[in-house]
């Protein structure tokens, strides 16, 4: 196990190194540097530009620049943003990353949960009307032009019905005299979510270990969840932050809903195909022969054996969410890493764009690793091959 992890870690580091190098040189190969943006600016004299180039070391050889770039990255220094000068890039990314993460993490988890559940039933009732509706719906969701769907949702819920806020992360008027910054409040929300999730996992692990079966224990996790949420609300209420917390969540709702909705299609189809493939297996027939209840066959045989590609895909799409996020974040003006990337690219904020891009790549890599690990943990056959 340790050897596997060590090997894997080395692989990741090498990949990361090559990725960063490649990114650097691809971008280097592009004509001009960022100072060319100012070339047409009449207020910039050639001396000023040369001065600027010297300040950023752009007149040195490519290799010297490259080595410095690498050294800075290793020390966590991604440079200084141009557009928000003199804010360090890392500072900006640190602020935006959690927003993207929360949005996409919840959207992915919810949509895969729903998609898996629907896909299971769709495969179970293969060929019936409900199945056909679900499959047609999924294909439409997969092929629909996402920005358009998002626009429609914005239009319906925000303009037409006026239920949800139009855009943005928070309501600026409300926050003008808030005791804390939105980033801090957001941090608290994340803490609350993490603690609740950990508690929930702990409780269900304990329940499983104790082997408490039956109808009663089924209600314990929801009760724990409810209590945790209630106490979080009470805490926020006492510190006077509740209204701000609600404001953030309120702004989260629409992008979360649209993102979840659009992703259900692919996870549904994926699950359905996987379950149908498992249906062909001998052990499913044998399970039926043993007179096991349909629910047992559906959950412990079909769904359990079909879970592998679904979890892999979930891990990959979690990794991808930082890159796929550009569209969503732009459409909903959600100031996460994707929107940062787009704005930085459009505005010629070269260090910020590269920084955001590298972060995106790192998360993609983490997604791949998570997919591998999940695969290995879920299948006893593979679990062994790693253990040795």
């Amino acid at each position, binding site marked *: 196990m340790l050897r596997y992890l060590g090997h894997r870690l080395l692989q990741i580091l090498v990949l990361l190194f090559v*990725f960063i190098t490649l990114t650097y040189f691809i971008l280097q190969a592009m004509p001009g540097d960022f100072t060319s943006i100012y070339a047409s600016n009449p207020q910039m004299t050639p001396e000023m530009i040369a001065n600027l180039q010297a300040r950023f070391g752009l007149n040195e050889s490519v290799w010297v620049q490259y080595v410095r770039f690498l050294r800075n990255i290793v020390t966590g220094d991604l440079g200084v943003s141009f557009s928000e000068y003199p804010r360090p890039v890392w500072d900006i990314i640190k602020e935006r990353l959690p927003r993207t993460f929360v949005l996409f993490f919840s959207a992915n988890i919810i949509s895969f949960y729903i998609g898996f559940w629907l896909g299971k039933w769709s495969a179970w009732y293969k060929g019936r009307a409900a199945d056909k509706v679900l499959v047609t719906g999924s294909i439409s969701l997969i092929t629909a*032009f996402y920005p358009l769907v998002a626009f429609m949702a914005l*239009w319906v819920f925000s303009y037409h019905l006026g239920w949800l806020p139009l855009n943005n992360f928070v309501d600026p008027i409300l926050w003008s005299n808030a005791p804390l910054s939105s980033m801090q409040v957001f941090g608290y929300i994340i803490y609350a979510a993490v603690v609740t999730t950990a508690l929930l996992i702990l409780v269900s692990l304990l329940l499983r270990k104790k082997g408490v079966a039956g109808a009663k224990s089924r209600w314990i996790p929801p009760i724990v969840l409810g209590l945790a949420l209630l106490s979080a609300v009470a805490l926020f209420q006492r510190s006077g932050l509740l209204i701000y917390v609600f404001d953030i969540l309120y702004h989260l709702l629409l992008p979360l809903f649209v993102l979840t909705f659009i992703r259900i299609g692919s996870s549904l189809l994926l699950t359905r195909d996987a379950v149908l493939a498992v249906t062909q297996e*001998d052990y499913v027939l044998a399970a039926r022969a043993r007179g096991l209840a349909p629910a047992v066959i559906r959950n412990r045989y079909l769904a359990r054996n079909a879970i592998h590609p679904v979890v892999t895909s979930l891990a990959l799409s979690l990794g991808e969410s930082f890159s796929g996020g550009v569209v969503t974040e732009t459409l909903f003006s959600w100031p996460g890493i994707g929107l940062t*990337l787009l704005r930085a690219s459009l505005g010629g904020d070269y260090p910020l764009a590269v920084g955001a891009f590298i972060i995106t790549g790192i998360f*993609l890599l983490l997604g791949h690793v998570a997919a591998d690990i999940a695969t290995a943990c879920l299948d006893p056959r593979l679990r062994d091959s790693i253990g040795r």
Partner: protein
Amino acid sequence: MNRGRITRKSTKKLHRTSASPMREVWQHIRASKTALFGIGIILLFGFCALIHPLLMHTVWHPRLYDPVTGYDSFSSWYALGIYDAVHPAPPSWYWTPQFLSSWRTGQISLGECLAHIARHPLGTDPIGRDILSQLMYSTRAEFILGLLTAIITVSIGTIVGTAAAYYAGWVDTFFMRLADLLMLFPGIPFLIVLSAMMDLNLVNLAIVLGILSGFGSITIIIKAQALAVKSHAYVEAARLAGGSRLWVVRKHLIPHVLPLSFLYMLFTVTAAIGTEATLSFFGLLNVGCSWGLMIHTMSASGYLASSIRYWWLWLPAGLAITLFCAAFYLIGRSLEQVVHSQRQEG
């Protein structure tokens, strides 16, 4: 239990008797309703792409109908008492009652009346260009982009994948590591960064997309298939019988890998069109006209808030993107089954 075994046995027999795996794929396409539906849609789009230049040369005057520079001043309608036609104008059949009454009063002939009704069947955009013309004109670009990307992707993927499988050793190692690396390149962010640095047009886009997925994920998929075929005894037999390496690759590996390549070609088209639409939608792509750009024009001119009233600004383009992607996706999905059953036999 027997089920799996027996059906597999019988498909195997089918596989051996049919001349080539690709022919089996064609047979399946002909038999599948969804695939035929997809082909129908593609043919329809193809028809649009072909007929657009014809229309431009015959009935559509370029000054009015050019998808990029056209402009209709509607002055000929003033004489008919229609003054409320301003860009973005709704479809011209909107004013059908007025045209009909002008015809009845003898102001215009029946032919003219019909021509007026069909003047802008899908209306005009905020700067006065005909939506239908733009829609049809873009089809060609979408075809070029989709097919070019698919061909680049799949040629690279097929050649590199089979080579990696056949030669193994360092060739394999090199290309597999390269694939791992390229899969790390987040598609849309990468293109966004690129578009900031260079002028991204359709051909550039196709090449970048083709290289990224051709050397990336497609290579890995094709290699797995080629490995399965390779281990199949008859390839070995052909090698022992003295066929040259290249001959073996051409004669045995490629034909059995081709159906899978074809499948991924279809999926690549869907992905490429989606990417193009997204980038144009943000206005990051240097194209004269495309479906994504049409929607970009709408949102950039501020018609989003009243999008239901101005439905012709986004609905035709949005539907075109969705349908076009769906067509390729549907064919791909219906083929997936055959190709995977072939793959199992390997």
